[in-house]
């Protein structure tokens, strides 16, 4: 029959239209359709009616793995940057948008594991996440903040160290799983170190001659 395709199609739209209002009513008792609980359901496999989310008034939560321009983690307990300016992130970065100036000890002129300057050119960064993936010190992580528009398109978007640095509490909050893994690794390492130290002490006592305390091979911060 001619026209049946059109009628079928309009039927789909009508169904969605009506379902939207029915859904609205269902959510009245649960505090409305626009709560954080409702949002993933509204745009999820069980969604009925309108599927879209009215950004920016409403927004979907981002998953933990979500990656946007990176930030540097600041260790609030030790009160220092976690970054050792090893340069791996700058080397792996595909568009080469990370610039790092390594700190040199003014007296000895030897490198110190602290970045003096750290830039990420956000206009170039492709948010690929490779820097965070390959940093051996968990010092750089991908952010969840995707609203970075600015009225000035040059200097405002070259992020310097101050702008990039965020406390580890923020990291723990947005990446709970990753944070838990880090804490577990730290704890494991501390236990191992303690064990090693104990073994060394025992050995020392047994041999009764001086031996150097074992140095952890990959300590994040050798004392500068």
């Amino acid at each position, binding site marked *: 029959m001619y026209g049946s*395709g059109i009628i079928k*199609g309009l039927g789909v739209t009508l169904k969605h239209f009506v379902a939207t209002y029915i859904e609205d009513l269902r959510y009245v008792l649960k505090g409305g359709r626009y709560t954080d609980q409702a949002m993933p359901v509204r745009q*999820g496999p069980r969604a009925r009616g309108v599927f879209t989310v009215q950004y920016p008034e409403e927004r979907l939560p981002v998953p933990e*793995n979500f990656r946007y321009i990176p930030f540097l983690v600041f260790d609030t307990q030790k009160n220092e940057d976690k970054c050792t*300016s090893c340069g791996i992130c*700058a080397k792996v970065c595909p568009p080469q948008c990370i610039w790092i100036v390594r700190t040199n000890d003014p007296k000895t002129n030897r490198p110190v594991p602290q970045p003096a300057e750290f830039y990420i050119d956000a206009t170039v960064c492709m948010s690929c996440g*490779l820097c965070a993936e390959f940093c051996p010190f968990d010092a750089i992580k*991908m952010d969840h903040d995707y609203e970075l528009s600015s009225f000035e398109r*040059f200097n405002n978007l070259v992020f310097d160290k101050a702008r990039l640095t965020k406390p580890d509490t923020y990291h723990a909050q947005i990446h709970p799983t990753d944070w838990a893994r880090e804490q577990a690794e730290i704890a494991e390492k501390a236990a191992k170190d303690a064990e090693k130290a104990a073994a060394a002490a025992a050995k020392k006592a047994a041999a009764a001659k001086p031996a150097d305390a074992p140095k952890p091979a990959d300590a994040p911060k050798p004392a500068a």
Partner: protein
Amino acid sequence: MAGKVAAPVAELTGPLAVLKEKFSEALSPGEFEGAVIKNENLVEVAKFMRDDLGYDYLSSVTGVDYPAANEVEVVYHAYSARHGLHNGKPLVFKARAPRDNSVVPSLVSVWPGADFQEREAWDLMGIKFEGHPNLRRILMWEGFAGHPLRKDWHEAYFEQDNKPFDSRWPGGHHTRAEDRVPLADNVAFPPGFDPTDFNSQAETTLVERARSVDVSELGQLVSSDGNGSGSGNGHIADAIQTDHLIVNLGPQHPSTHGVFRMVITLEGETILKLEPVMGYLHRNHEKIGERNTFIQNMPFTDRLDYIASMSNNLGYALAVEKLMKVTPPERAEYIRILMVELTRICNHMWAIGFLLNDLGAFFTPALYAIEERELVLDLFEAASGSRMMCNYMRFGGVARDLPEGWIEKCRDLVFNRLPKATDDLDHFLSENEIIRARCEGVGNLTAEQAVAYSAAGPLLRASGVPYDVRRAEPYSIYDRFDFDVAVRYHGDVYDRYLIRLDEIRQSIRILQQALDQMPGGGEIQAGKKQYQTRVPAGQAYGRVDGPKGELGFYVVSDGNPNPYRYHIRAPSFINLTALGEMCKGQKIADVVIILGSIDIVLGETDR
């Protein structure tokens, strides 16, 4: 030969031995699995390969520059598509020419699918293909000096031959590339070219080509579709003393799915000739890729076909894994399959939705069709961190394991939602009289033509050639799954629509099996993940059956941290070779849906 990839010289075996016997002197073994063929015999040998050995499908043609040996090389990969011979293995052969006089005979007369690829090799690598009917630049414009994939060519903001750049660490004070190399100092023009005052030679040639239609074909074209010229010989333009109309469609045209242009010669409303013009989105992906380290290319592959980044990731990973000789652990293999098959579903739903757009049903059906895609992208985002630029695969594995709850969500989608969504699409669209009236019998491509033009993917299979890389030369773990290679036989727009539905259903089958078989845990990366991958010297061609067709990565490594050559066989690009043929004799109004039915993405076409 310094700078040359040296590997043990292979003996000529199998089909190569047959060739050697027949052409003896013309063939010599190379330091790769294939043969080098003398230029003067190339066409003859190629004909023999096609007709007697069954290599009817020329998958990839590309060039490699070896300044140290003062040589350029053309690499061909041919397969047997209609005959399905040789276990799906390629016949790799090469032609060589000196750098300063790089002329190689064209194989367009043997495999018309070489057309755009040879033009690309000329454009980017400066290899002249003697006997090519239309050897002009295809991606660059006429004011471009040089051939960018030559090793001695430097881009506008050239900093250093290879990444990582020394200026980034340890004394990395931020500078902007534009400040370092000021604008106007960074561009070169060909000799005698004045950018402020020039008459475009390229445009003149385009118009001339559009004007010069083969009059002998006209009668057939115009009367064959009942255009009603009445006179029988069909040359209306003569009868009413008018000229052919040349219509320029694009590059800025919503129907072209990006920036793509077609120059169309019309007789009345009937298309006599159509020439695609592209390159507006060209960014020299391959040159960027050769400056990058191996791992750095991974996120760049996302930007090729940005609807299907997971498939691109897989193709590249497979090519490099061939060189590294690593295989990912079980769990990673399954994760990869899940990802690429979900990608195929998204892509086809997108393609179907936007075909309706092209038919004039503006956006309402398209938005319904891509609802499922939204949910699949949620899964991608949860696993990889990004909805479209997934950057998820690594050499020998995947970037990270699936987060908690992912599998359950995926199961829900694959078992409960996607089958129904596909049936819905089918139910609402397949019998729709407008779709049938506009799509059936439009944009025909026969099986012979499809194979000859190196068409791939749904375009090839809708023309009655059941050729699917997943079956012909199974990669990853596709040999474990029970699925059918979708095939349709009319080769028109309607069949290209139907085949996408078929493929979605097959993908769902694969996904269901993969979810059932998948190990619950385990490694996701073979070996230690390194930020600078060591890739042994050699060359590899990794290909996957992406949603758009056969996506191939040809990678040459010389043992350095950067690929020596990195080439992409882009299905969107090569499928367009057949566009002119498909549009001949069709109505101008149908151009848009014929193009839509190929399903191109300009990010991949232009690279």
